């Protein structure tokens, strides 16, 4: 496999659900993910940012094979995930979930939770597994004494370390982190982010890092993709998106990050707060009802993700117009 081959590739992935509103109300289609194409090269971290209901977790589930795309293809290491067996898939991609309380089975010891992937894949003898579990626990900063403990005896941060150990023990090609720190206190979040950064540099992990907080994402991600209502609205190198975001929603998200600087007042995101109903998305650009730069074209035509300036891509008519105006004659 060449190094040019991306580890993760999404080709125009669509996921539609049919949602019952209440027990007997008619079902309506919900476009959770509306045509997403992204790729993550080996050794890189793609940060996926968006608010609740934007489809980022659905996307993660499709990459993990827990959901099947309605349309499009997910390829891992060049192979369509739909054609992989469950064991093969598990060797390629592993998750770390959000809630450290529900992500560990309360009736199993830490050792058996971390060792489960080895047991399922029939790797090594019982003694070898034990050694590897101990190594893994040490790698994520837990002591050997934790092996015999049950999840209820650990703190939130320790549990999240266990989840990371379980995800890494099979040495997967790709790690999916779905809001791994958003259920944690800030001081614990910092510990987990530091751990992930450390593992990143030591193991050269390739990962998809999902969060609603841009400040967290930029700690780890080499590239960032911003999602809004099921679509990627901006994608580019982290530094560029953080400094020169082109999509007004990315700028709004960035402004919403409240840094602990007492001299700055509250930001004016100029986004309003009328979050659209995902069951009845607005026509044209889905973001137009909240957009401060909206003009007529936005209400009828959905913008496509394309390069306007620099190395990043944005799906915005205003960005396109501005870029066009800036081209020297």
């Amino acid at each position, binding site marked *: 496999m060449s190094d040019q081959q991306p580890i993760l590739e999404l080709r125009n992935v669509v996921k539609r659900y049919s949602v019952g509103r209440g*027990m007997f*109300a008619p079902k309506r289609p919900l476009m959770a993910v509306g045509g997403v194409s992204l790729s993550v090269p080996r050794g890189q971290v793609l940060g996926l940012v968006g608010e609740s209901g934007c489809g980022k977790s659905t996307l993660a589930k499709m990459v993990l094979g827990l959901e099947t795309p309605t349309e499009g293809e997910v390829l891992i290491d060049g192979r369509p995930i739909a054609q992989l067996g469950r064991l093969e898939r598990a060797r390629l991609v592993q998750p770390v979930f959000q809630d450290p309380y529900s992500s560990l089975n309360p009736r199993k010891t830490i050792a058996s939770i971390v060792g489960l992937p080895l047991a399922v894949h029939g790797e090594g003898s019982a003694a070898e597994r034990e050694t590897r579990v101990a190594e893994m626990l040490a790698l994520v900063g837990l002591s050997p004494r934790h092996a015999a403990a049950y999840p209820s005896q650990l703190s939130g941060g320790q549990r999240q370390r266990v989840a990371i150990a379980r995800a890494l023990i099979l040495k997967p090609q790709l790690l999916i982190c779905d809001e791994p720190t958003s259920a944690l206190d800030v001081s614990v979040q910092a510990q987990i982010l530091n751990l992930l950064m450390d593992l990143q540099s030591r193991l050269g992990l390739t990962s998809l890092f999902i969060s609603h907080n841009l400040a967290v994402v930029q700690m780890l991600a080499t590239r960032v993709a911003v999602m809004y209502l099921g679509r990627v609205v901006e994608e580019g190198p982290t530094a560029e998106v953080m400094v020169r975001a082109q999509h007004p929603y990315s700028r709004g998200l960035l402004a919403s990050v409240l840094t602990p600087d007492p001299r700055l007042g509250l930001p004016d995101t100029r986004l309003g707060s009328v979050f659209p109903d995902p069951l009845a998305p607005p026509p044209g650009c889905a973001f137009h009802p909240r957009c401060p730069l909206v003009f007529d074209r936005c209400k009828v035509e959905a913008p496509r993700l394309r390069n306007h300036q620099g190395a990043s891509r944005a799906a915005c008519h205003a960005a396109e117009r501005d870029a066009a105006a800036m081209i020297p004659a």
Partner: protein
Amino acid sequence: MLRFTLRRLLLALVVGIAVSAIAFMLLRVSGDLAIALAGEDASPAEVERIREQYGLNRPIIVQYAEWLWRAVQGDLGRSLFYPESVANLIMSRLPVTLTLAGLGLVIALLISLPLGIIAALRRNTWVDRGALGIAVVGQAMPNFWFGLLMIFFFGLSLGWLPISGSDTWMHFVMPAITLGWFSAPVLMRLTRGGMVEVMTSDYIRTARAKGLPGRVVVLKHALRNAIIPVVALCSVQFGNMLSGSVIIETVFALQGIGYLAWEAISRRDFPVVQGILLLVALFYVILTLLADILNAWLDPRIRRG
């Protein structure tokens, strides 16, 4: 809401058909009805004659379809014992059972609602433990035994109440108490559980933060939400009471459909048994339908969902 009602109605209809089929089939597959009718020591020829006479030799589906077709028209066949049609027989006994079940439900609610609410508000005090204790002990008593004890004390020893028959309201006192007593624990637990959950909810804290007095918090904000599942359970309990009337009516010789069912079963009067099974099952289907609609109507999240 209309859509909800229609869908729920359709479900009730399908369940109704399934239940009627089961009520019919059960008696056919659990043994040879012809032998049961003719008696254990009847000659093979006699059994064959009966099989012929009742059409038991035809495919079971055909028998069922025919029975259902007649049943829909109100014809449940004729009793093998009484010189009457099954439908008439049941209709003449039904009022007794409905009265009994109605009274039973009222008694159950009179016991369970206040007790459940007080237990929830005084959680983990002796009131709560006492109420739960009564519920646990109450549920452990066999209802026929409880009935017999009542007969012994209030009927035989004290002579306050008549011990059998269904002529006056006095005849209903003990059966209704017995029936209500056994429904009360379930209703009480649900009321208590619902109230406990609601009282610890965020919106009750909001109501208290508004400065509302305790009585308004409990009656307006808590009870309204806690009572919704109780309403549904009430109809389920009413259905159970119709079914449980077999035991109670037999103990007190109350001439309702329960007693009729027992008589018919003992005498192998199968058209009557089938008719009663169908009727009680349909009652239950209709009651749950009503409960669901009432539930939806009480809960704005369903009504306007």
